[in-house]
């Protein structure tokens, strides 16, 4: 979330799209209710289903699953053609005026640089025109035909209300009603928040759906303001934290990135990431990359990381290709992976196309699972009848199942969607011999290290030198680890303006990332968490809920990254002169008297940069402004474009009907052999979408008695019209099949799933809740990923769980 849960109360309008907060995030959704009750805010829900969020909305518009970009692009077109944009905001704080490279084109559904064989783009034309001074060229009059504003206007003019209705199946009047309501928030003192979740991420073009939403918010001036923002409602309690800590194949902590195998020179690696400003007077905060990177390497490798060895740069593994979960299961299926460790992760249920995942795991030499509960993954080799029909004798994988603690049995911090690091405390001991994750990791790692000490082996240096300064080596304590990622001074850290002034003494915890250095004098495991545990103590454990400004900021409750800042980009809540656009929702403002930005939040800005200096609010971007034109940051185009889901009821993409390459996302990766597993609408005519229920959490709560009682048995939802066509009554058992397998479940026939007219054709949707499996105290059921296709988003590789094709029959 750019903002946070309580801040939703400050909004005028809520758009829930690509999520169902009332069902999946109920206690956060209460802030929508609060805004409705106390600010007369309104709620719009756009969803393929009439959800629990829709049930309490002021306006609901149906949409075909997987067509969200077309809908949002239509909104962009509406805002631009009806002049419903926040002019000062977009002119000052976005790339509207930036001139784009003359070679950039978009034709027949493809951007310039497409390589059909490799299914990717050469992105070299997706950039700005750079002047002789090294800065990007701009035209503040916005008249230049190559400025972002003009290109964007042309690109989105194609998304007319009729086109939106054709692609999305949304009645035109409903679409226009949504546009009108949203357009009202272009007024400087009105705002809208967008709340989305996996309904946007789990598509072959999920990242671009979210981008399109962010573009709508930028046009309206709704980013950086109280009650506004792009608010990702994360699916699990700490995937925000684990992402922040960089536990993804290509990341290092704090959104730093691992080097590729062509980036062997340390100075070049740093330079490329320490981006210099692209406009005069801009901060371009990533210029400090070297300080964050060196501090992480000092935290990991201590004295072994020196200036002479480039802070152990060679020790970091270099990427040859992406190694996301889909790639790894592909490689596993091809016999290239021997061992796999699943820590609190149940991929047999969570990764797409169960038959492929299960087959891949059967090719492993060994599998280790670490979990408080018995997961399906840990028993992938066990025959569970129709739900897991395998022959154990044929599976030669050694499997270890290690019991870990659950939340109630450990200390530590989790990061919620609002970026709050909240400490929690242990209340009891785990059952039996279960151990904490830290003890289990230490158990395995220390044994490996001992073996390397004793016997030597392949490149032991990073293993032998990994910092492990724990009072009890077999149990690295949460307190020690939190202090390590928060950071400390190894030598005295002095003020660059006055070297005689010591900011932090050697050995002390640092106060924040501004104190990090690239000379080896600081160690900090995750720069964006810096200061979470300072000399003042564990700030994540703070529990003062006072809200002195009445705007819901509670700065002394826990710790928010970065720097305890609660609302990102909050400089953009003020006009260029530093005055809040809406003084009733003031976050910060320029105080000329003290020469500082002050207010109810920590400024997301250089705290003493006066408005006259012309620094812009988006300080992480070298441009200083927000980008409509993504330059080369996205794999599938600088402007979001609608493509059909890989499995779609339409034979062609209505946006470029004559180009089969542009039917589904041209830059999405599809592995050899997977094309054949995609179903066609002649055999699988219905759109399917998967989702959660409020009574259950993923595949955990089928092990929980109270959840099993209130929602005991697997079901699917089918609209009344389709049910009638197929002779299905509520309570009947139905078989839902895709080209990859089938599930059998009870049918719930409902008005909540209506048929839509898409591309002139009647289209039905089948709703598939995900929560059942072959282990648990609820009634056993089928893992729904039996049905889903093995393809992911072109940028993140998040699987396309939200739009695929099925057929339904009564059993």
């Amino acid at each position: 979330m750019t903002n946070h849960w309580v801040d939703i109360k400050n909004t005028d309008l809520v758009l829930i799209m690509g999520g169902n907060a009332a069902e999946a995030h109920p206690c956060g959704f209460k802030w929508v209710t609060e805004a409705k009750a106390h600010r007369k805010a309104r709620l719009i829900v756009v969803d393929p289903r009439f959800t629990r969020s829709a049930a309490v909305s002021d306006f609901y518009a149906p949409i075909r699953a997987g067509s969200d970009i077309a809908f949002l692009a239509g909104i962009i077109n509406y805002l631009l053609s009806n002049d419903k944009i926040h002019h000062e905001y977009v002119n000052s704080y976005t790339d509207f005026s930036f001139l784009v490279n003359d070679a950039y084109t978009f034709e027949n559904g493809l951007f310039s640089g497409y390589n059909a064989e490799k299914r990717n783009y050469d992105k070299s034309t997706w950039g700005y025109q750079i002047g002789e001074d090294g800065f990007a060229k701009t035209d503040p009059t916005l008249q230049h035909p190559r400025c972002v504003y003009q290109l964007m206007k042309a690109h989105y003019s194609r998304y007319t209300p009729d086109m939106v209705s054709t692609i999305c199946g949304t009645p035109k009047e409903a679409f226009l009603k949504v546009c009108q309501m949203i357009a009202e928030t272009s007024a400087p003192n009105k705002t809208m928040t967008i709340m989305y979740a996996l309904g946007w991420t789990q598509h072959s073009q999920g990242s671009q759906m979210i981008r399109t939403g962010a573009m709508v918010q930028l046009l309206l001036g709704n980013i950086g303001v109280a009650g506004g923002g792009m608010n990702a409602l994360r699916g699990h309690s700490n995937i925000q934290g684990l992402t922040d800590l960089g536990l993804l194949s290509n990341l290092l902590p704090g959104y730093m990135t691992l080097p590729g195998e062509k980036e062997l020179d340390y100075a070049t690696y740093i330079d490329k990431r320490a981006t210099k400003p692209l406009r005069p007077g801009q901060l371009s905060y990533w210029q400090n990359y070297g300080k964050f990177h060196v501090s992480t390497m000092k935290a990991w490798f201590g004295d072994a990381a020196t200036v002479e060895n480039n802070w152990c740069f060679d020790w970091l593994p270099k990427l040859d290709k992406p190694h996301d979960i889909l790639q790894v299961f592909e490689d596993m299926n091809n016999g290239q992976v021997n061992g796999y460790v699943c820590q609190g992760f149940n991929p047999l249920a969570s990764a797409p196309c169960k038959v492929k995942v299960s087959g891949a795991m059967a090719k492993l030499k060994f599998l280790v699972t670490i979990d408080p509960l018995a997961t399906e993954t840990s028993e992938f080799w066990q025959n569970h009848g129709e739900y897991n029909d395998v022959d154990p004798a044929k599976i030669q994988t050694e499997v270890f199942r290690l019991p870990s603690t659950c939340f109630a049995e450990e200390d530590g911090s989790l990061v919620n969607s609002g970026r709050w690091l909240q400490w929690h405390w242990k209340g009891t001991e785990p059952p039996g011999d279960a151990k904490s994750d830290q003890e289990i990791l230490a158990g395995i790692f220390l044994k490996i290290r001992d073996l390397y000490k004793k016997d030597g082996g392949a490149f032991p240096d990073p293993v032998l030198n990994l910092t492990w300064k724990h009072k009890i080596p077999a149990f690295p304590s949460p307190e020690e680890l939190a202090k390590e990622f928060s950071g400390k001074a190894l030598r005295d850290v002095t003020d660059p303006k006055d070297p005689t002034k010591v900011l932090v003494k050697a050995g002390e915890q640092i106060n924040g990332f501004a104190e990090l250095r690239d000379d080896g004098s600081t160690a900090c495991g995750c720069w964006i968490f810096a200061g979470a545990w300072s000399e003042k103590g564990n700030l994540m454990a703070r529990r003062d809920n006072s809200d002195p400004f009445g705007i819901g900021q509670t700065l002394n409750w826990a710790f928010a990254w970065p720097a305890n800042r609660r609302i990102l980009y909050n400089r953009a809540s003020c006009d260029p002169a530093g005055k809040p656009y809406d003084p009733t929702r003031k976050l910060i403002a320029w105080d000329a008297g003290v020469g500082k930005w002050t207010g109810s939040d920590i400024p997301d800005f250089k705290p003493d940069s006066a408005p006259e200096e012309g620094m812009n609010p988006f300080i992480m971007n070298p441009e200083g402004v927000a980008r409509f034109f993504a330059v080369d940051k996205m794999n599938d185009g600088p402007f979001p474009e609608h493509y059909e889901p890989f499995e779609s009821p339409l034979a062609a993409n209505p946006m470029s009907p004559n180009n089969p390459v542009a039917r589904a996302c041209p830059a999405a990766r599809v592995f050899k052999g997977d094309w054949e597993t995609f179903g066609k609408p002649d055999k699988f005519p219905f759109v399917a979408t998967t989702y959660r229920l409020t009574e259950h959490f993923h595949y955990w709560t089928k092990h929980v008695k109270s959840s099993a009682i209130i929602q005991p048995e697997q079901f699917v939802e089918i609209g009344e019209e389709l049910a009638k066509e197929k002779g299905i009554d509520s309570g009947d058992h139905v078989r839902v099949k895709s080209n990859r397998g089938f599930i059998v479940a009870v049918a719930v026939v409902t008005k909540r799933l209506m048929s839509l007219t898409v591309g002139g054709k009647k289209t039905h949707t089948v709703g598939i809740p995900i929560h059942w499996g072959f282990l648990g105290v609820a009634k056993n059921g089928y893992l729904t990923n039996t049905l889903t296709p093995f393809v992911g988003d072109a940028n993140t590789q998040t699987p396309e769980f939200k739009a695929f094709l099925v057929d339904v029959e009564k059993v």
Partner: protein
Amino acid sequence: MQVTRRQFFKICAAGAGGSSLAVLGFAPDEALAEVREFKLARATETRNTCPYCSVGCGLLMYSLGDKAKNAHAEIIHIEGDPDHPVNRGTLCPKGAGLLDFVHSPNRLKYPEYRAPGSKEWQRISWDDAFSRIAKLMKADRDANFEATNKDGATVNRWLTTGMLAASASSNETGYLTHKVARSLGMLAFDNQARV
């Protein structure tokens, strides 16, 4: 007529007379809404946060005993933390049932091992599990570690063993996991955020 709480409930249970007694002023000394306080009066309160979705609701957990070293601190009740700025004491149906997660019959209690081709689990000790896993991992790493790629560039990576990190483990676990995985040279490394 002096009526204690306990007697009052007995009278109520005896029949319809209860409600009329209350109307006549024979209310008990303490408020009726205090039932929960009885149950939790001698419990130890611990602050925690919900492990399910990302709202991060505050929890109060109540356990028997005072967490003394030799006493088993059995958790008997979990409810929303009324001081928490986001959930303000409320919990959803899942959060309200967290006690049943802690006490689920499917909680794992001992390390287990499944041999190749076997139909069943067998119990093993932690030490055996750690030793065997470490041996398997090291053997695979030593056999398949790529110090250089085909162009001779230093890449120091290990691609034949991968790891999926959790979705609900703490930052402290996540940080340690990342350190361990990268020091071994792992790249096939993701967490639940990917899906």
